[in-house]
C-alpha cells in the first residue's frame, strides 16, 4: 500500500497556514505615531508591542507596522504600550 505522508495534521510554517485570522477581529489596533516611542525618536527602541504580540504580526520597523491580515485584535499591544500610543478601534465603528 502507498505510504500516506499526511496522516498527522502537519504543515510547513508560513504566514496564513492557520487561515486569514484578521477576520476574527472585532477591534483593530491603531498607532498614534506622535506618542509611539520608536516613531518619535526615529530609532529602534521600546518595541514592547512586538515583544508581547502573541501572533507575531507586529514589525519592528519605523514607523511600527501591524499586519492586519492576521491580527486577531486581542489588544495586548495596546495594554502593554508604555506611552499608550495604541488604541483599539471597533471595526464596526471605523
Amino acid at each position: 500500500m502507498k505510504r500516506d505522508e499526511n496522516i498527522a495534521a502537519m504543515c510547513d510554517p508560513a504566514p496564513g497556514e492557520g487561515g486569514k485570522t484578521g477576520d476574527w477581529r472585532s477591534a483593530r489596533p491603531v498607532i498614534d505615531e506622535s506618542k509611539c516611542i520608536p516613531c518619535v525618536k526615529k530609532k529602534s527602541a521600546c518595541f514592547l508591542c512586538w515583544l508581547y504580540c502573541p501572533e507575531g504580526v507586529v514589525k519592528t520597523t519605523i514607523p511600527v507596522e501591524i499586519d492586519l491580515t492576521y491580527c486577531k485584535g486581542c489588544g495586548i499591544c495596546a495594554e502593554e504600550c508604555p506611552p499608550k500610543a495604541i488604541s483599539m478601534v471597533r471595526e464596526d465603528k471605523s
Partner: protein
Amino acid sequence: MSNVSIITGNHAAALGAKLSGVQVVAAYPITPQSQLAEMLSQFVESGELKAEYVRVEGEHSAMTVCISASTVGARVFTATSANGLLYMHEQLHWAAGSRLPVVMCCVNRGVGAPWSIFNDQQDSFSQRDTGWMQIYCRNNQEIVDTVIQAYRIAEEVYAPVMVCYDGFVLSHTMMPVDVPDAEDVKKYLPPYRPHTILSPDNPKTINSVLFPHRRENTEGVLCDGFMEMRYKLQAALERAPETIKRANSEFAAIFGRDHGGMLWEYKADDAEFVITGLGSVASEATVAADTLRDEGIKAGVIGIRVYRPFPREETIKAFSKAKHITVLEKSLSYGYEGGLCSDLKAAFYGAGINATIDNYIVGLGGRDVKAREIVDAVKSSTSATDRDVLKIKPKWLNCFTG
C-alpha cells in the same frame, strides 16, 4: 534456548520495554504500576537501558513527554493505572490524533470514588474511545511478549497501543516467564521509522487549528480537514487486525509462543457454553470450563485479546456455534451493561448468532473471582429458559446487593 525467570507482571513489562530498546521513558508512580516505573528508572540509572528517564509531576505530563519525544523520532514508553490514566485522558486523544506509536502499560485498577487500589478494568474501558488500540494480557509471559509486539503494531499502524494487565492479580504475582533473547527481539522489531520527524532542519507546524471545511494551504494545495484526519485514524484501526495477527504469528515463528492474535480459544471448538472476558478473568474461566466439562457440560472459553480495534470478524467466526454465552466483565457502562457485552451483541447482529447472552459484572475493586463462582454463573444462565428480552440486565456476581 529458554531463559526462564520467576518474575512479577510489572517486572515482565519492564523487561518488555527494555528489550524493545525504548529511548525515552516518562512515568509517574501509582499503585499498582509503581514497581514498573521504579524498575525502568533503575535500568536507566545502571546503564542497562540507554534511555532518558524524564521525571514528571503527573500523568498528563508523562504522556505529553512521550508525545513530544515520539514526535522527534524516539521510541517511547510509559505506564499508569486508574486515576492516573484518567488524568492522562486529554493527552491520550492527542497521541492518537497525532498518529504517534506510543506504547503504554495500563496496570488495571478500579477507579475512585470510593478509592480502591485493587483490580478491575474500569480504567482502560473508560479510555475505549480515545483512538488507542487495547490489548489485554492473561499472564506475565503475555505481558513481556505483548509489550514487544505492541511496538511492532504501533509503528506499523501509526497509532498508540495500550497493553492492559490486571493489577495485583498479575502485576504483583510471580510466575515463570521465558524472557526473550535480546538479539531475537532486534530481529523481530525493526528500528522505529517515524512518519514525520520534527527537526530544526525541517520545521513544521503540528496540529494547528483545523476548520470544519477542508482548506487550501498557502501554496494553494487542498489539505485535509478535521473530519478527513479523523477518518484516517478510523481507517488505520480498521486495517490494524491484519497487522496485529501478523505481529503475533511472526512472533510465534521466532519465539514459539502464539498468544492468539485478536482472540484466543480454549476448548471452544465444540463448546455450547462459551465463557468470554478480557485478561486474567478469562484465564480463570478456563479452570471453570474444565470443571463444567467434568460434569458433562460442553463448555469453553473465548478470550478477547484485542478490545480495540474490536475483533468483529473473528468473534463472529469463533462464537458461531455457541448456544449460551457468559460475558464476564470487570467494568461496565453505568446505566446499561458491560461494554464487551454490548460490542459482542452488536457484532452478532445479523450474523446468525442467536445464542443467549448473560452479562456478569465481576470482581470490581479487586473482589476475588473464583472458578467455582464462574461455574455457578454458567449453570444459572443455562437454566434460564424463558427469557424476557425487555428485562435483561447485567447480573452482579458475588455482590451483596439489597
